[in-house]
């Protein structure tokens, strides 16, 4: 019963925040106007159709992607503190994008930045996985510290490249700070093309992920092809993080917070955790984006600042109160 109520509240809140996010901004709309627009978007306002709707939709989808990437990372690394941001996977995506801008590869083909973003995420996830296998065992805390170190290293190289090539600085600062405000339906379509298959495949491997939560040897003895599962999960994390960084720049802590909240309520089952991460992650990022637009209106605060503001205390709570390590 408790679980059902939680899901119901999540759905109602998501719809509510979706409507409020659409209505709030430089031009305000009533909820009735928003509902009319949603029934027949073609007759709606240009501002709603071309700016607000893509923004709200993409914030929901990026939140969902990062949360599922966080959930998969925690299972893959057997570490509740794993998160695409903390483990440097987002920075890896950002680094490859900056590198492609620096080398002038950004216009090589359509969506080449998203491709480099994916490659960067894949590269970093793979490095972290290699580190996690050092001598077969590394403590979760050491793995986290290795991720944080990698995060700093890649961020500093990205900054160095941006300063070295001035043109790169303009492009990368614009790309990483504008977040959801420059989104369009072309980007949303790309986001959906990546997100939907990742979601379906994550659900299809739900029971294998459950078994993997007991450790690699146990998963193996329960009939899981652990090598294949790890490779597959690595690709899913890289795709979800890569596309999120491409769409909105680096956004921290969503991937850490959402799965941990859900695991304490729902336990192990990925068949429940994956769709719930979608809902709660989407909702949290929509709320964060809305707060970012409201708090110093008309000035917008980048959503990453809001998520860090919410996420950092949560991280400390996990570390000390729950005494994870």
């Amino acid at each position, binding site marked *: 019963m408790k679980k059902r109520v939680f899901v119901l509240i999540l759905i109602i809140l998501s719809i509510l925040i979706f409507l409020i996010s659409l209505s709030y901004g430089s031009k305000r709309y009533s909820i009735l106007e928003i509902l009319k627009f949603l029934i027949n978007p073609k007759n709606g306002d240009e501002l709603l159709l071309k700016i607000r709707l893509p923004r709200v939709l993409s914030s929901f989808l990026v939140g969902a992607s990062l949360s599922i990437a966080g959930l998969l990372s*925690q*299972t893959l690394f*057997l*570490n*509740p503190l794993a998160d695409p941001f903390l483990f440097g996977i987002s920075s890896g995506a950002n680094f490859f994008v900056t590198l492609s801008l620096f080398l002038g590869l950004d216009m090589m083909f359509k969506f080449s930045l998203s491709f480099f973003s994916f490659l960067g995420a894949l590269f970093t996830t793979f490095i972290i996985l290699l580190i996690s296998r050092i001598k077969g065992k590394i403590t979760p805390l050491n793995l986290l510290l290795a991720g944080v170190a990698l995060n700093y290293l890649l961020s500093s190289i990205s900054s160095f490249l941006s300063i070295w090539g001035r043109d790169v600085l303009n492009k990368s600062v614009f790309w990483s700070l504008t977040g959801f405000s420059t989104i369009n339906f072309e980007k949303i379509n790309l986001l959906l093309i990546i997100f939907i298959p990742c979601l379906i495949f994550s659900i*299809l491997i*739900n*029971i*294998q992920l*459950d*078994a993997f*939560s*007991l*450790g690699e*040897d*146990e998963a*193996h*003895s*329960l*009939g*899981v*092809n652990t090598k294949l599962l790890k490779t597959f999960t690595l690709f899913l994390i890289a795709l979800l993080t890569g596309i999120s960084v491409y769409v909105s720049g680096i956004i921290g802590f969503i991937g850490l917070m959402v799965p941990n909240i859900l*695991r*304490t309520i729902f*336990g*192990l*089952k990925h*068949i429940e955790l994956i769709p719930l991460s979608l809902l709660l992650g989407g909702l949290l990022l929509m709320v964060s984006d809305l707060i970012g637009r409201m708090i110093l209106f008309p000035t917008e605060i980048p959503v990453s600042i809001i998520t860090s503001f919410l996420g950092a205390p949560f991280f400390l709570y996990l570390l000390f109160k729950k005494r994870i390590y």
Partner: protein
Amino acid sequence: MDYLVVNKIFFSYNKKEFIKNINLVINKGESISIFGPNGSGKTTLLKIILSILKPQKGEIFLEGKNVFKFKERERAKKFSYVPQKVSSFFPMSTFDFLILGRVPYINGFIRKEDREIVLNWMEKMGVMHLKDQNFQFLSEGEKQLITLIRTFIQESEIIVLDEPLTHLDLKYKSKILELLKEIKKMGKTIISIFHDLESIKYISDRVVLLKNGEILKDGEVNDILTKDNLTQLFEENISQILG
């Protein structure tokens, strides 16, 4: 045809040889223990039998078929594993832990019949009261008991145990040993590592003494666990332990 054949196994890691030319034939329904000092290669050998580790040389055959060529699910229907310490990295209910024993039989989603199998075993073993409890917070004894029950749910023929009594108090030690006795009566094959001689004598038909990755002795428990053999195994006079 021999049931389980371990044929000329060699395993080394970082240039150190852990297993050297191990040959074993294990019969169906037999209970065999591997005994030896720390670092003698006992766990490595178990992990090779479970095909968690792949040896550099040698094969393992189950009913004539190379186990390294089994599909993962097919292998899990034959072998189940009870490690020394069961750890869950995330919160999960005992029921959710147990249903993982059905992984080899599930295509994507848990079925109603899988749930019923788990509930039936929980009922039969008297652990229904643990159903919704967080597995992470169970006592070590309860965890081992539940892990052993999972092997029934997994319906495997061979149960591989790696020091399952190490962290347990007397109550759970005797509970687990009784349950293992029942498993033996069911005709399942048991391959185990125990640290104490009493457990081996209680459960096993046969014992293999392992020293520096090689078989020192192999035979019936009473013939093998002699003062001379154990002194040779540990390179210490251990007559006080034998009493």
